[in-house]
């Protein structure tokens, strides 16, 4: 049977990859010097450097960060059995911004600083903050067994850490602008090293999430049914939370808080094809990558040679998408 269905899944996957590759090529031509750099890259070393060291890693980085967020979103929605779940649900976003605020207050400097020590410090701080916040959430929820407790603990951690970050910004107002840059999210500073880190983390997370996906399918039928099927829920849930924290932490550390990609990517996939979580996770990663790369290109191109923070753009686009979704579901008479 399933061949028509499988064809649909493969077609979507291939389509997302091809579109991604096309946008990647397109992205090489967008920047303050325009397509000219791409054309002259063959004989002009400066142009080559612009394309190879700035535009390519940045565009690729946007794809990788989006893929991490899309993957994390699909895992979060399956794990919490809620189509509105978001990768930042366990407090990782507020943990990362608190850590960045702390780092900025203690060491000064700015998010846009190109000094690699500074970059590394802030990236590391964001990652550590994101993962520590998730660990705090898990401690408060006393493990991963009760989904509702986990969600509530995530909300509490998010609010409290957010308040702590606000206190810090009030105490040292000079970091405000730098911190705002991080909170809005940007792909502007992604280099080859960041791409390598995200690709490595992404590969590990994708493999793990794919291997654990049958648990998410089982959980969709309810916790008791999943256990009646002999699934060892405890350990596998913990592993899925680890995937969620790692993927989100890696993306947030490199690109800041980018809104809605993690929420919208799995939704968009499901609106095209209904399938098992193993496929949904892979397709959501491809979709997330495409979304963020497209948003990044738009952010660079809309008011060129200036650029918009890509997080602002994803928030506006994602919000409109959710509004449309709500309208459509409302018209059909179903709930979200």
């Amino acid at each position: 049977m399933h061949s028509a269905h499988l064809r649909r899944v493969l077609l979507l996957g291939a389509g997302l990859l091809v579109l991604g590759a096309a946008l990647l090529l397109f992205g090489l031509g967008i920047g303050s010097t325009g397509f000219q750099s791409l054309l002259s890259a063959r004989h002009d070393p400066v142009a080559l450097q612009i394309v190879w060291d700035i535009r390519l890693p940045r565009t690729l980085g946007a794809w990788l960060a989006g893929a991490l967020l899309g993957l994390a979103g699909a895992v979060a929605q399956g794990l919490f059995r809620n189509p509105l779940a978001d990768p930042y649900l366990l407090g990782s976003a507020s943990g990362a911004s608190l850590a960045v605020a702390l780092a900025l207050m203690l060491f000064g400097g700015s998010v846009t600083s190109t000094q690699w020590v500074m970059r590394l410090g802030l990236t590391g701080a964001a990652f550590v903050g994101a993962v520590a916040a998730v660990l705090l959430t898990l401690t408060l929820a006393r493990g991963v067994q009760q989904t509702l407790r986990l969600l509530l603990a995530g909300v509490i951690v998010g609010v409290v850490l957010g308040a702590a970050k606000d206190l810090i910004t009030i105490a040292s107002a000079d970091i405000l602008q730098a911190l705002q840059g991080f909170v809005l999210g940007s792909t502007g500073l992604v280099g080859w090293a960041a791409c390598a880190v995200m690709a490595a983390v992404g590969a590990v997370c994708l493999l793990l999430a794919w291997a654990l996906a049958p648990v998410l399918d089982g959980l969709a039928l309810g916790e008791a049914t999943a256990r009646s099927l002999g699934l060892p829920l405890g350990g596998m849930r913990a592993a899925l939370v680890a995937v969620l924290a790692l993927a989100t932490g890696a993306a947030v550390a490199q690109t800041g808080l980018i809104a809605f990609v993690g929420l919208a990517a799995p939704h968009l996939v499901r609106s095209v094809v209904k399938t098992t979580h193993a496929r949904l996770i892979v397709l959501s990663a491809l979709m997330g990558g495409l979304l963020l790369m497209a948003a990044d290109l738009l952010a660079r191109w809309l008011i060129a040679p200036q650029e918009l923070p890509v997080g602002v753009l994803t928030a506006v686009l994602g919000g409109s998408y959710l509004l449309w979704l709500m309208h459509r579901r409302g018209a059909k008479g179903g709930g979200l």
Partner: protein
Amino acid sequence: MSRTPSAALEAHGLSATLGSVEVLHGIDLALAAGRWTSIVGPNGAGKSTLLKALAGLLAHRGEVRLFGEAQAAVSARVRARRLSWLGQSGTGEGSADDLMVYDVAMLGRLPHQRWLAAPSGADRDAVERALRSTQAWDWRDRPLGQLSGGERQRVLLARALAVEAELLLMDEPLANLDPPHQADWMQTARALVAQGRTVVSVLHELPMALAADELVVMNRGRVVHHGACADPATHAALEQVFDHRIRVHRVADQWIALPL
């Protein structure tokens, strides 16, 4: 296996609490292998809780034995192959709306599959048999969310059947089913018993419950009677537990319970 154990499931001093309230009080019960047993009783009697505890899905005190073995000693995976459990509809499968009917039924094969292995021919055959037996095969390419309540129930039933376990525990399997499909379910239960399997069902439809081999009558967390469905003592216990608001009659070779 040289000898067939007489009891598929046994409970000794089984107690369970939901929140801080004890809802099962020291139940002793032995459910015969190769028979169809129905569990009946008023709302809140503890029927679903008993079924969950028997299936090993609920923390409890006391002992449960599965085919003579202490259930705690049986690994979850082995248990999942020998015992299939179907929960009440509407309790938790809501997030499966985006799964295809075929994929939902295939979940019943998880206990038989190696992790991440593609479904084998045997898995596919079992899923097709199960979906056909509940007349859900035609919807195999539709998402669960697009089906009506009764259609969903038939898919979930097929999921439980696809396990092809020796022992099937079903909690209100007839919920939302129309009369022809209720009759189909009864034939399925009969056919399973004819193959030597054991069926345990919690039912509110008393005529269906009385079509089983044995009846367990529960009230307030205790088993008040356990006997053959044709036994007048069973009928008396049934009438008593429902405050004598029903009476069991013999009509057209079937037992039915009519309200008074």
